[in-house]
């Protein structure tokens, strides 16, 4: 496909502005000399360009999207219409408080609901994504220990199964990361945890259900061990979809959390963002929250109050599904995952064969060993069937991993059809392993050379003049 710059012809374009109605004035000096290359296209060409690009993009509405740990549920249309109301989009963030009471109400209402769903006492909507929320929550932990003069607490404990953002956020917040091993069930190894905690423990970061899709049954013991050592407990809300309305992180012993509005609360992911990662905490940490201007706050983690329009969408979602719909969504997410797991596990070996939460992990080490067909090959084969493949090679503690998260918004027929495709692909892998390395066959491009991309980076278009 042509780049927008390759479609460009000098002199073409559409005029969107009226004539300048005041005398032309530019600063007298410091003006640009370097030519600015932008595409020159009439609107018809712009429209077609992006329509073609959209056709080469797989969204939730294009087909099944069981991308583990990403909760690719349906994004309801009413959310979009509400976020597009001029009464929201045309509001300047620095308007006086008495002119933005509606925005305030959106934020206050959503904060209140999120507190109720998570068992926290206060929430800030300022963090713009999950990782941003992690960073924010860890700064709360840091500020808390600092204020108490407990400066020797410099370590954050993170299970080896954690998302990469957890250790990266801890490092950004100035902590040393202590990685602890998981047990043979993929859960926190209590002995390792006990050995790791001490006077230098600032806190523990945990995802629960964890990254292998299991609810850690020792959760109360885990948070107790950390608290007794003087640390705080951080809940990574990436997997909240499995338990919302069923159990609350606040009741499990967590002190600080973030939730992902773009996963759990149905706001779309936009091909990478914008998301929203509100931070929540118990009352004793509330004054440290960002964006509230409270005495003792850690300050701001971004400009203004957060990704407001994303908050509008999440609020529309919660209002739509209500107090019955929240646990029902969780239950059906868990049911759909277990249903697929049960229909696949006779041929696709499970990393942990027990009741899963909203996602499950397949381990293809044996297949790889016997046939040289890898998790990547299996994933690539799915592309020919209109399915977005599961998450590959994560979590790191499972080799040749495929992580499947169907979500609650898929029908039984979709799951049955996906199961059939998964099984057909497996059969083919066993019968004709060589052919698997060639997959996919029917996509616009196939198996890009990622080594070339990284060795000789070309990350912008080069204009001729």
């Amino acid at each position: 496909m042509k780049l927008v710059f390759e479609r460009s012809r000098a002199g073409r374009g559409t005029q969107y502005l009226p004539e300048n109605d005041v005398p032309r004035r530019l600063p007298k000096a410091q003006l640009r000399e370097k030519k600015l290359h932008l595409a020159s296209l009439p609107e018809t060409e712009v429209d077609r360009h992006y329509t073609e690009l959209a056709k080469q993009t797989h969204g939730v509405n294009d087909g099944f999207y069981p991308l583990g740990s990403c909760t690719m549920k349906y994004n309801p249309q009413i959310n979009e219409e509400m976020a597009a109301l001029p009464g929201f989009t045309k509001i300047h963030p620095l308007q006086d408080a008495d002119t933005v009471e509606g925005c305030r109400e959106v934020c206050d209402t959503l904060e209140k609901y999120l507190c109720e769903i998570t068992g926290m006492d206060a929430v800030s909507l300022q963090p713009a994504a999950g990782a941003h929320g992690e960073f924010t929550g860890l700064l709360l932990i840091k500020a808390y220990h600092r204020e108490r003069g407990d400066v020797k607490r410099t370590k954050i404990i993170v299970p080896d199964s954690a998302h990469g953002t957890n250790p990266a956020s801890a490092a950004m917040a100035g902590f040393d990361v202590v990685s602890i091993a998981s047990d043979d069930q993929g859960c926190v190894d209590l002995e390792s945890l006990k050995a790791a905690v001490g006077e230098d423990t600032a806190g523990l970061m945990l995802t629960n259900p964890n990254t292998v899709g299991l609810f850690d049954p020792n959760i109360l013991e885990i948070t107790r061990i950390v608290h007794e050592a003087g640390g705080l407990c951080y809940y990574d809300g990436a997997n909240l979809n499995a338990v919302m309305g069923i159990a609350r992180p606040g009741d499990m012993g967590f002190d600080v959390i973030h939730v992902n509005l773009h996963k759990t609360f149905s706001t779309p992911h936009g091909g990478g963002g914008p998301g929203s990662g509100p931070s929540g905490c118990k009352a004793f940490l509330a004054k440290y929250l960002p964006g509230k201007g409270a005495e003792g706050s850690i300050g701001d983690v971004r400009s203004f109050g957060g990704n407001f329009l994303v908050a509008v969408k999440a609020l529309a979602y919660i209002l739509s599904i209500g107090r019955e719909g929240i646990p029902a969504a969780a239950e059906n997410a868990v049911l759909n995952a277990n249903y697929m797991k049960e229909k696949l596990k006779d041929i696709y070996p499970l990393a942990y064969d027990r009741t899963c939460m909203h996602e499950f992990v397949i381990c293809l080490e044996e297949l790889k060993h016997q046939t040289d067909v890898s998790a990547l090959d299996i994933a690539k084969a799915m592309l020919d069937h209109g399915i977005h493949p599961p998450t590959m090679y994560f979590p790191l503690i499972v080799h040749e991993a495929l992580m499947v998260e169907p979500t609650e918004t898929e029908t039984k027929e979709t799951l049955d059809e996906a199961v059939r495709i998964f099984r057909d692909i497996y059969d083919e892998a066993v019968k004709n392993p060589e052919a698997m390395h060639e997959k996919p066959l029917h996509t616009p491009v196939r198996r890009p050379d990622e080594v070339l991309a990284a060795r000789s980076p070309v990350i912008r278009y080069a204009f001729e003049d």
Partner: protein
Amino acid sequence: MNFPKELKYTKTHEWIRFEDDNTAYIGITDYAQDQLGDLVFANLPEEGDELTAGEAFADVESVKAVSDVLSPVSGTVSEVNEELADEPQKMNEAPYDAWFVKAAEITETEDLMTAEEYEAFIAEGR
């Protein structure tokens, strides 16, 4: 796999070629590059940085992984192979030409293996 006799080797798969007692070139072995797959970049130290035996002084990136490179000696970086930035494939294609740094003022050396010992060490590991 190729393990030149004139080099010494570490258990963490670096090679070292001594110019004299105080100076040496350091790189990663043929076995290391084979295990790591296609390497796309090396993060190198700067001239004048200190090297500590047994500690990481560089790392190498493949598309989906990053691995530390440990120094077999304590000393100072006297030269850095800037060519690796432009031609990272050299680490795969000619690992013993693709030196990372030249170490000078060497004060301490890890336990090193000869080519034979290293080959045996790898065979054992398999």
